[in-house]
């Protein structure tokens, strides 16, 4: 029995080894170990003004897009969560409709539609792409807030607005946090959005990676960026975990 269970895990272990562990090993090799162990490449990376500009630009775009997603997604989620209409599931389905279309196609169409390129277009594209990832967790959290909390708040003298910022907003914070990370994490490394909607001022990490690996064949330089990105994802993951534990303790859900 025990042996057969181990046996079942073999395909997965092989998959992990070939497609996760081995490539990761390669990344680390190129970043640290070409011609002996060295941190020089990371030193160079973090001391290069151009590289830092690209890094912070990527973070800035992703952050701004996540903020837009909150500004658009939160009110929409609030309306949907409060609505008693039987069309709510249908509307939620419609909100995910853009995802049914191929992402590249969607991006090209957006570019054609506005017939302009630049930072603003990249952020619009990011917002459009990742809005459902913000809306859904917020909607679920809001939907699960017990109505009795709202009644208790008005019973204790709060009007609608006070109830919103003293009760509803804090209780839905966990949804905002998980939505934020679900938008920010993929947005920071986006490739085709900046490639198709951006101009020469919107160079992002994703594009840089593409350049390094497919054009310049600078595997070591690319590996450094990949590891920086990976660190971001891991840090985001730990922050989500930590905040969601905090959120659970406070009665929220992620």
């Amino acid at each position, binding site marked *: 029995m025990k042996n057969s269970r181990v046996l079942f895990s073999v395909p997965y272990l092989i998959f992990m080894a070939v497609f996760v562990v081995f490539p990761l090993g390669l990344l680390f090799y190129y970043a640290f170990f070409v011609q002996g162990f060295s941190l020089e490449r990371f030193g160079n990376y973090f001391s290069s003004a151009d590289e830092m500009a690209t890094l912070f630009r990527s973070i800035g775009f992703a952050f701004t897009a996540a903020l837009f997603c909150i500004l658009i997604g939160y009110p929409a989620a609030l309306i949907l969560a409060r609505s008693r209409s039987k069309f709510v599931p249908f509307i939620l389905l419609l909100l995910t409709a853009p995802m049914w279309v191929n992402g590249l196609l969607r991006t090209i169409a957006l570019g054609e539609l506005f017939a302009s390129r630049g930072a603003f277009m990249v952020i619009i594209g990011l917002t459009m792409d990742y809005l459902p990832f913000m809306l859904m967790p917020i909607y679920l959290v809001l939907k699960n807030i*017990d109505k*009795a*909390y709202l*009644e*208790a*708040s*008005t*019973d*204790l*003298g*709060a*009007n609608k607005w*006070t109830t919103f910022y*003293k*009760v509803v907003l*804090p*209780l839905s*914070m966990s949804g905002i946090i998980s939505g934020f990370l679900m938008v920010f994490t993929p947005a920071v490394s986006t490739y085709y959005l900046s490639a198709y909607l951006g101009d020469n001022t919107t160079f992002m990490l994703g594009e840089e990676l593409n350049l390094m690996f497919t054009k310049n064949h600078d595997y070591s330089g690319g590996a450094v960026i990949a590891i920086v990105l990976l660190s971001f994802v891991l840090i985001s993951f730990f922050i989500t975990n930590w905040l969601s534990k905090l959120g659970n*303790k*406070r*009665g*929220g859900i992620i």
Partner: protein
Amino acid sequence: MKIIEVKNVSKFYNGEGAVSNTSFTIDEGEFVTILGPSGSGKTTILRMLAGFEMASSGTILIDGKDMTKIPPNKRPVNTVFQKYALFPHLDVFENIAFGLKLKRIKVNDGERLLSVGEIKSKVQEALSLVGLKNYGDRDIDNLSGGQQQRVAIARAIVNEPKVLLLDEPLSALDLKMRQEMRIELRRLHKELGITFIFVTHDQEEAMTMSDRIIVMKDGIIQQIGTPKQIYDEPSNAFVADFIGDSNIIKGKFIKDFQVEFLGKKFECVDKGFKRNEIVDVVLRPESIEVVKKDAQIEAKVLYSIFEGSYYNITVEIKKQKLVIETIRRYEDGAKIGLWIEPDEIHLMRSNDIEDKEENKEVENGEE
């Protein structure tokens, strides 16, 4: 002084009546229980007093002012919710301070908010009143059910409401805690001196705590009275059955102070029914005595159930079953003699409930 006046209030949900043309008044400082089974409209009445629901018709006066259309945050009442509804993102102190932080008090040149010091001392006072002195910085989910209950009460009374509304607040607690909280609520009522309106489906809670009880069924008030009045003189079979165990059997009114049931004539204290009118006879299980001699009627024991401090025995008389409370046990099949004091026999018009049903239909039809 009347603190609550409910006048001809009805509440309809999608055309269905949850509360029908209800009127009652509550005096300042009273402990009133609204008692009824689920769906009786008792919670709807409480929610209309709190302002969570608006009456479809009729008026609600609180402290002499028309509050029918006033939202909850502008009413001089506070609520203890069924599942407490304590804010999970705030600790005990912040939960209790929630209302105080929003409160505006009148001063010479207008209004002002309470100072931090004032809030602190009021919260501390409320905490010690409910016996949770050092619990201020506790998280809500680190409290037991009983402690959460106390915090919920503190959160409500700290605002010094004119009326405290309690929506089945004990139903989530275990039996022992429930009994403790009953005593606790009575004590708080006495100390605070404000009006308590308590909603429950538990007749024992209602009997032990209330000054007066409003018994409801199907959105209609069946009876209003002190626990003793309601127990001793239930106005109809529903009330008699709902308040404690009862034997309700059909009888025939012979003349004033005499009634016939179970094939025998009994002395009673009721009068004013029509001659030969069919009446409901209410006999409480504890008011039927088992006697060795001078029995008015003989019964056969069917079975006995041990209830801890007494036995509930079911007997048969002329194919009619009666439940009797006794201290000693009787063998199944034994013949025993019964005696009922005249003042333990309560007579009611047997068509009381049907009458009420008809009234309700007429009222609904008009709407």
